[in-house]
């Protein structure tokens, strides 16, 4: 009987084609959109983790309160000891220290007089330790426009836009003016080893990247750092593990009444990233829900139209001794078949495009121009196990629901009424 029904579906294109197309398209869109959103959200999170939040971040309590003011007077001290402990006690993570600062960059002319001056954001990372992961993490090799990455102390990278504006070339000497951890003025001269362009308006307008030891020297932060960041060694954020590390660390090192004691926070606790990720998840859920409802309505209607066309078929099947209930169930079987075909094809297409977009990505840097937010320049999809069912089941459910509703309208009709449709 199933075989018989299957033949009918395959042969009666008008009955199967539209629903299959509707389901395929809907499932395809759901799978792809969800994979794409997942990828983009993931990329944004990862980018933020790399540049700002780490997978976990350690600050002093006081610094954390007003972190956006870069209050280096409240920076972490005794960092060497802290780092040693972190490496020993939490070996599953990689720990790095960074210093953030702000100041003026002075561009001298040939005789040493100020030719121009611009405000810059200073970031100090570990450039020089052999095997440092920070250079890759900050995507510096790919962002390099001119010159090379610093190889010794006293070298720094500046944003290409700044270099162009002030006519600075690699090898030039610039002086950075800032304030020390204790609030007094300080300056340090750097040799520009290269220029950078990240595709992010804040970083690109004016920034200087220097080695952490240079910063520590210049800012009187000898054994201090603005922050210590922890990254899972496999590069993938795991909230559960992060929570364990956070709880353990805070209970051991953080004192509630000491505003200079360190406190750890997870990626999702910073800058509203957690809310953002939850939003992403609920957006996905809402999308799937809307999709089920909309598809059910469309399929209900195509089911009704198909049903109307099939009154005479149902009538004759009744006359041949098929029970009405059985006819109703066969329409459900048919819906399952159609839903399966559409869901399988739609999921396959959606996964296919997601895979493509995972490996190729959509380069938005030229279209989007410079944006203030920390967003990736290439949008990639991410293929997750969830994609295999996120469209599949809604597709199946919508078809069965739509056809079930349509079938019910037919089912409610009296046998004799259906049968009367047979007469011309």
């Amino acid at each position, binding site marked *: *009987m199933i075989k*018989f029904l299957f*033949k*009918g579906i395959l*042969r*009666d294109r008008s009955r199967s084609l539209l629903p299959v197309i509707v389901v395929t398209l809907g499932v395809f869109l759901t799978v792809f959109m969800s994979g794409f959103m997942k990828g983009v959200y993931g990329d944004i999170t990862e980018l933020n983790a790399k540049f700002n939040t780490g997978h976990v971040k350690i600050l002093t309590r006081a610094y954390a309160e007003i972190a956006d003011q870069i209050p280096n007077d409240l920076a972490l001290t005794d960092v060497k000891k802290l780092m040693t402990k972190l490496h020993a006690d939490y070996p599953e993570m990689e720990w790095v220290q960074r210093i953030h600062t702000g100041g003026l960059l002075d561009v001298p002319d040939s005789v040493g007089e100020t030719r121009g001056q611009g405000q810059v954001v200073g970031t100090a990372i570990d450039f020089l330790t052999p095997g440092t992961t920070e250079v890759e993490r900050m995507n510096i090799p790919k962002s390099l426009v001119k010159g090379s990455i610093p190889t010794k102390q006293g070298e720094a990278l500046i944003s290409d836009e700044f270099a162009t504006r002030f006519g600075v070339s690699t090898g030039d000497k610039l002086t950075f003016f800032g304030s020390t951890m204790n609030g007094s003025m300080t300056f340090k001269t750097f040799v520009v080893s290269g220029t950078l362009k990240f595709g992010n308006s804040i970083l690109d307008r004016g920034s200087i990247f220097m080695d952490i030891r240079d910063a520590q020297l210049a800012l009187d932060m000898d054994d201090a750092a603005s922050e210590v960041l922890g990254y899972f060694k496999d590069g993938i954020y795991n909230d559960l593990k992060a929570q364990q590390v956070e709880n353990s660390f805070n209970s051991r090192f953080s004192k509630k009444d000491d505003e200079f004691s360190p406190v750890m926070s997870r990626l999702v606790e910073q800058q509203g990233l957690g809310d953002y990720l939850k939003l992403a998840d609920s957006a996905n859920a809402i999308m799937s829900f809307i999709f089920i409802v909309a598809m059910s309505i469309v399929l209900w209607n195509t089911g009704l139209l198909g049903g109307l066309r099939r009154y*005479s*078929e149902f*009538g*004759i*099947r*009744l*006359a*041949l*001794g*098929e*029970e*009405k*209930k*059985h006819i109703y169930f066969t329409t459900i079987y048919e819906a399952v078949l159609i839903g399966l075909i559409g869901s399988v094809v739609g999921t396959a297409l959606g996964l296919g495009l997601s895979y493509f977009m995972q490996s190729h990505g959509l380069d938005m840097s030229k279209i989007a121009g410079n944006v203030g937010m920390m967003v990736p320049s290439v949008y990639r999809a991410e293929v997750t196990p969830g994609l295999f069912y996120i469209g599949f089941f809604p597709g199946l459910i919508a078809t069965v629901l739509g056809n079930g509703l349509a079938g019910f309208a037919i089912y409610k009709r009296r*046998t*004799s009424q259906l*049968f009367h449709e*047979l*007469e*011309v």
Partner: protein
Amino acid sequence: MENDAIIKIENLIKRFPVGKTEFTALKNVNISFGTGEFAGLVGPSGSGKTTLLNIIGSLDSPSEGEVIVLGKNVSLLTHKQSAVLRNRHIGFIFQTYNLLPVYSVYENVEFALLLQNMSGSERKKAVMAALEWVGLTEKVKSRPSMLSGGECQRVAIARSMVKRPEIVLADEPTANLDSSNSHNILQTMKNLNRELNTTFIFATHDEKVMKYLNRIISLEDGKVVKDLLMPDSKN
């Protein structure tokens, strides 16, 4: 013949709701049919022929009175029981053939047997035998759209006969056919009637059909007005 009646109708009344009132389509009908009859309901349009056939076939139920088909009171049958009655014991033939367009001739005839638990080889034998009765063994793979009207009606006959029912109800089976096809169809049915002793009941206006009938029941305005045996029917 009256004693071993295969269909017994007593004081049958059928009313249809029409808006807020009711329309009485059958008014106190009393008839019996014996096994092997080749009988016809005749009468003007709207006289209640189709309504009566539908009630005999348990596609519709009586408002009042008793209709006993093969010993069963159709008013008392459950949905399932009346489906089984139709599936095993009653064949239907319609004016407009009502073949399932997406299925082949073979599959159309096979359908009723799929509802029974019949093995594949048994099914095949039964279907081929039925197609042989109507002379369509050459067209098993054809779709209804490729057949002539006469051929379609022969498929419908094969479909109604494949399960070897005791009763075949035929509503205007020749109305869409030309004269030679009509005779061909009627001859086929008459042969089956004689070979298998199947009871045939027609509803018809067609003079050609009447020549074959061995009993003519005239309906008028929902009432039986004449019930004549035809000793000199064709063949």
